């Protein structure tokens, strides 16, 4: 009896430990797998030209990722620029100005927004954003555009990033002690002055991290962007131009990648690039959050 209990305990501890180790090794395995797969590419393409060349013609063995990197950056930066005022002010309103029931009402709304699959956002983008950009915005600025554009991708991505970033910002403001606000108010500040001078400063590292993590999330987003961004390999000259993003490239070409030599390696290199960049961004901003929680 005692022996069997010990044995069970022993075995199960080992099982738990191995599960943990397995999970911890997973990213290492992902990294190694992607490196191994993209290795053949490195033999005749130096890393610099892979990243900074804009010559992309797989059938000629030319793999320049610059258009995709630029496309991804454009789309993501547009999304974050839209999100900065929108999410920040919404978070301020919900935690500082609005009555308590409003925040209670908004939490499930944000949850639902966060849970909507990216394909559905893509469908919405096709239905609403693409025509809006093509028929309304572009003519307004005197530009010809089909609507499938960097701007459309950025707009859809912004909407997708709202719940993710807003949730983190709400948490940042929730963690600021009420007494700090009381201290500022009792010195004669208005509520907005308190927010501007005290809360934004107090929460600065949290706010920056929220946007940093939002940026990395947006950078890796695939389906919704793919559906509206146009998927044309070019260096976009304006936001109304069609573009192509790194995740979209990978997703769009999986079917034919076995038929062209080195193509599969190139796509895996794209995935590796994405993986490394996003991992780095995540580590940096998670670290900032971690540090700010210590104080």
């Amino acid at each position, binding site marked *: 009896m005692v022996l069997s209990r010990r044995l069970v305990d022993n075995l199960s501890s080992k099982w738990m430990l191995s599960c943990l180790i397995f999970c911890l090794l997973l990213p290492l395995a992902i990294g190694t797998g992607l490196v191994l797969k993209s290795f053949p590419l490195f033999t005749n393409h130096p890393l610099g030209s892979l990243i900074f060349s804009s010559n992309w013609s797989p059938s000629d063995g030319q793999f320049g990722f610059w258009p995709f990197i630029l496309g991804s950056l454009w789309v993501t930066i547009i999304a974050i620029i839209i999100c900065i005022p929108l999410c920040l002010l919404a978070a*301020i309103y919900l935690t500082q100005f609005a009555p308590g029931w409003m925040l209670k009402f908004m939490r499930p709304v944000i949850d639902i927004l966060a849970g909507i699959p990216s394909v*559905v956002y893509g469908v919405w983008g096709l239905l609403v954003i693409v025509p809006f950009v093509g028929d309304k915005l572009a003519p307004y600025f005197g530009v010809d555009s089909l609507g499938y554009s960097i701007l459309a991708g950025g707009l859809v991505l912004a*909407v997708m990033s709202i719940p993710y970033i807003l949730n983190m910002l709400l948490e940042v403001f929730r963690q600021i002690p009420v007494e700090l606000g009381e201290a500022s108010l009792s010195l004669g500040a208005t509520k*907005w002055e308190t927010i501007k001078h005290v809360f934004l400063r107090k929460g600065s590292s949290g706010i920056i991290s929220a946007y940093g*993590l939002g940026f990395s999330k947006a950078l890796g*987003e695939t389906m919704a962007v793919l559906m509206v961004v146009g998927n044309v390999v070019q260096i976009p000259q304006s936001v109304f131009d069609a573009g192509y993003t790194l995740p979209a490239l990978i997703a769009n070409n999986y079917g034919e990648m076995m038929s062209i030599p080195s193509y599969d390696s190139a796509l895996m290199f794209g995935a590796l690039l994405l993986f490394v960049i*996003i991992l780095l961004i995540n580590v940096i901003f998670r670290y900032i959050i971690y540090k700010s929680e210590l104080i």
Partner: protein
Amino acid sequence: MTLRRKLEEKIFRVLSALFTLIVVLVLVHIIWSIVEKGMSSLSWQMISQEPKGGFYFGKEGGILNAIAGSFYLAVAATVLAFVISLPVALFMNIYLIKYQRLLISIRFFLDVLWGVPSIVYGAFGFTLMMYFGLRNSLGAATLTVAAMIAPIMIRAMDEVLKTIPIGLQEAAYALGSTKTETAYKVFFREALPGFATAILLAFGRGIGDAASVLFTAGYTDYIPRSFGEPTATLPLAIFFQLGSPIEEVQNRAYAAAIVLTFIVLCISVAARLLYRLRKN
């Protein structure tokens, strides 16, 4: 107070309320525009039948293959992820509780892992599949999705377990329980309602994700009968049908989007209800 200060306060009050309103309106608009577009094509036939001949030219049939495929995939991946996540979360909160620094590092690591985009998991799953000589299948997709949702599940479970007071652990030991018994009999039971929320969260993520299964699941008009067969999924069904030039097929994509949104909404609401139940 000067006029400028008063004005600034007013402006930002109004502006921030306005922006909050925009967020709500966007949500309403997303759901409304999809429902408006897809409602006419939504029928019982569509969710109860597999695609028939000529389905992709706008003829008879439905997307049951994708609905069933998505459910199989999400359930299998959730179960698999749970089998891995539960021991990890328990191990962290029982065995590692005295190594706080290590625990913080692990949590940090899992949080970082959460940020890895699903397309990267998809690419990795594909690499693995090639390596082992597997073909596109429900099994391969399950593995990929499970790997993707496991970090989410572990962290969600961990958050629940973290709230259990250390006194409970001490009490269990004082009664002579082994660590395993403490883990599965005391902690597991104590945290079960919270786990349900974690599982639903992961399930919702699994059922809605397309990028990770794009390479691994394949696509078929039939409901898969084993893990070795390829499977259709709802997000991919929407994606592929949208690509069709035929209007009936496109409309079906919108209808399928309603179905997917509805499923995800239900999961989200259920998770929230469970959460509230636990709090009371």
